[in-house]
């Protein structure tokens, strides 16, 4: 079941994002100096019963936005806004994305980083 949910998230991003390269989890990625990029991770949190025969799993998508230091924040904010909008508009069977929030991480080794956290719930029937 996790596989289906992760695949759905991957498709959502792949089909709507061409603004920057994407650093996918457990895939080798070497950033190009001076070129902004995003990193995508999925964190699973909890699982519990959600009515007869149904299971609900919760988690969040963490998207890290890296832009070169000294480039300001406007372009990064635009990227964050676009990603947030993508997830707020998407409808996937069994998945509910909740309002996202932004976290400033700061400067590190030539990059300025902010994270976007998008919580979700994934509900499915056990027999599927």
């Amino acid at each position, binding site marked *: 079941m996790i596989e289906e949910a992760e695949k759905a998230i991957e498709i959502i991003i792949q089909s709507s994002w061409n603004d920057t390269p994407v650093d996918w*989890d457990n895939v080798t990625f070497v*950033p190009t100096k001076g070129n902004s990029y995003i*990193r995508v*991770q999925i*964190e699973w*949190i*909890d699982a*519990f019963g959600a009515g007869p025969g149904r299971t609900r799993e*919760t*988690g*969040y998508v*963490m998207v*890290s936005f*890296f832009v070169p230091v000294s480039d300001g924040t406007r372009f990064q904010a635009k990227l964050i806004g676009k990603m947030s909008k993508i997830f707020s508009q998407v409808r996937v069977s069994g998945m509910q994305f909740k309002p996202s929030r932004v*976290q400033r*991480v700061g400067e*590190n*080794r*030539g*990059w300025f*980083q902010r*994270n976007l*956290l998008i*919580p979700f719930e994934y509900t499915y029937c056990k027999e599927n």
Partner: protein
Amino acid sequence: MGSRVSTGPELKKALDDLGKELVVDLDKVLGKLSLDGYREVIRRTPVRTGFLKSRWALTTGQVPNSTIKNPGGSYSEQQPNVKIKWGDVVGLYNNAEYAEFIENGTPEMRAQPMIQPTFQYLLGLSTRLLDALSRERKT
């Protein structure tokens, strides 16, 4: 709470008794949330030397505002030793210098979040616990 009250003092006593029962329930809820949060964050903490894991602590007092470097060696986690009651402000903290980088990631290193998933886990758990308490009170 099924008995009838007919006078002011009886009503006051009934409300006082209910208040005491609720505080006992809420003490349990807060205690469970605190300890479950501690266990969850420990479970999610990556281990190389064990230093990061050993620096988690629960407190109802002041959270230290300084951090410490990993001096090397090997470590084991500490058991929380704190008495929690309703109304306390419970702090869960880690003062290892590099904890923030593990939590949020860096350009060279993926995040291995510990606090954020624990926070989300506790939000869900608290809702379910309070729902269960509410159902119990209604029956």
